[in-house]
């Protein structure tokens, strides 16, 4: 106990903390990017990698894993491995779509508020605060139940609900840059707002946007899986969450060992995808250091 005291005092706390964080994030980043590469490969080459058409009834129902079906078949005789590979597409499409939508909407609202300031800013930020305060999951459930569970509207809803956080971050950075001398000088020289935004603001926003993109993708992947798990998945695009839902709908699933190849693989896939996106995001955040504080 006493020796810990002395050690803590002889080291420079801030320096070691930064070094600690940097070392840890290097490993995290590597794990995250490698996992992400695996999932992207699976999604891109799913038709080549999958042994069967995931929608076709190729075997008897509930077959155990064997030479013909590496992960067995589900209750209607579809190949689980093929479903798993094609499921990567659904998760990644929703993740990328929602992330791009979040960043674009955030950029629009945060950019306008941050550039114009005044009452426009006040009004927009009020709306942002309200949307941030509302519980997202019940709101998404309500909207998805009303519109029907289509992949497109689900992605759009997520973008709409994730973007306020993004808008607030972008607005703060815009305010930070707006007062700088070089922006004022450019304005005096008659540069248009769009030019200043493109030429001067965007480079400062880029690290924020990249980190925001990855973070939103992780949240969207988790949300899609969660909604599918609650029975709000798009039945025409079978995701990992929906596979889990269908597996759990089979009475007595947990009483046999079927969960081992039907329930566990999709659960593991979605968990690893979320972890991969989180780790990549954490690495990027430390590497790019958005917000501009010196480390």
């Amino acid at each position, binding site marked *: 106990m006493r020796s810990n005291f002395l050690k803590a005092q002889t080291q420079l706390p801030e320096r070691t903390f930064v070094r600690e964080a940097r070392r840890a994030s290097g490993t995290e980043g590597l794990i995250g990017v490698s996992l992400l590469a695996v999932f992207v490969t699976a999604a891109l080459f799913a038709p080549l990698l999958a042994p069967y058409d995931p929608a076709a009834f190729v075997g008897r129902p509930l077959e155990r894993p064997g030479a013909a079906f590496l992960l067995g078949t589900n209750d209607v005789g579809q190949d689980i491995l093929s479903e798993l590979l094609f499921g990567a597409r659904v998760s990644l499409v929703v993740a990328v779509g929602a992330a791009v939508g979040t960043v674009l909407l955030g950029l629009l609202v945060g950019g306008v508020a941050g550039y114009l300031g005044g009452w426009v800013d006040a009004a927009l930020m009020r709306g942002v605060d*309200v949307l941030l305060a*509302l519980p997202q999951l019940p709101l998404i459930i309500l909207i998805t139940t009303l519109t029907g569970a289509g992949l497109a509207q689900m992605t759009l809803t997520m973008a709409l609900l994730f973007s306020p956080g993004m808008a607030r971050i972008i607005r703060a950075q815009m305010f930070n840059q707006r007062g700088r001398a070089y922006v004022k000088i450019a304005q005096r020289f008659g540069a248009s707002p769009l030019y200043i935004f493109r030429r001067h603001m965007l480079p400062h926003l880029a690290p924020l946007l990249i980190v925001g993109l990855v973070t939103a993708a992780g949240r969207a992947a988790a949300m899609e*899986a969660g909604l599918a798990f609650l029975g709000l998945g798009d039945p025409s695009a079978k995701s990992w969450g929906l596979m889990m839902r269908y597996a759990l709908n089979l009475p007595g699933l947990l009483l046999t060992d079927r969960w081992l190849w039907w329930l566990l693989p999709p659960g593991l896939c979605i968990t690893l995808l979320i972890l991969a996106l989180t780790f990549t995001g954490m690495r990027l955040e430390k590497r790019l250091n958005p917000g501009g504080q010196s480390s």
Partner: protein
Amino acid sequence: MVGYLFGLWAALTLNFLLPRLLPGDPLAALLDPDSAGYVYDSAVRESLEAYYGLDAPPVEQYLHYLAGLFTGDLGQSIRLKQPVAAVLGDHLPWTLLLTLTALGLASVIGIWSGAEAAWRRGSPMDKALTAAGVVIGNIPVFFTGMILLIIFGATLNWFPLSGGRTAFARYASAFDAVRDYAEHLFLPALTLTLALLSSKFLLVRGSMIGVLSEDFILVARAKGLPAGRIKHHHALRNALLPFVHHLAAHAGFALTGALFIEALFDYPGMGRLIFESVAARDYPVIQGAFVVVSVFVLSANRLADWLTMRLDPRIREG
């Protein structure tokens, strides 16, 4: 306070507007004999017509809706043929039991482990706990729950697989009743605790590290105070200030986490209610659930701000 009321009004208004403005006319489908969603029970259909009042002008509908809210009128469940307020009242206590149990457990464990990890910063224990915290905090709750359910429910048979209590059970004593409830609560509460734990641990650890580097800790050490006294009396007390805010603000997150867990464990709270209502397209119930959860989350956030203001003189006076 103004922000809180504004948020509340926005939630209630959104709840009114969404079903009326979203494409696909979900409400009209309930009353249209040609649609798949047509409600055949004429008594339920009439109560729906009365509640939504789609024939009236929009402003009148809105005022009618707000007036109904104040008297607790949230419409009629299509599936259960009961008032929505009564249905929600049946399910809410279960969710609160689950959420509060998990919040309490996660707070105790998170404070203790966070303080210890910060005290021994850089030690193998600290590194292991921090890494575990980051990983566990990002695993979806339904996956953690599934693993626990498979291990402790299905394989080891230590805990019941589903439900909130044994069906049709008649308890010999109060002790038996408590035991039955606790056995059913254990796995869902453990799942939610794990999901809430990591952010609490990381917060207390970070906050404690900050406090430990301050001058008054150095003074306490120079005075030769015992380590335990410095750790708990000087450091932890100050490190807990941000935790109080976090705890209240995190209540909303806990509540939504509980929704997934209930759907998995068939626990009879709001989550299972939402799950079953989604399948039946029971819009009034889902709307009611949204209102109730919104009120809880907004109130928890308001409470968080108020507590911080009360506890921290720097904010109160500043």
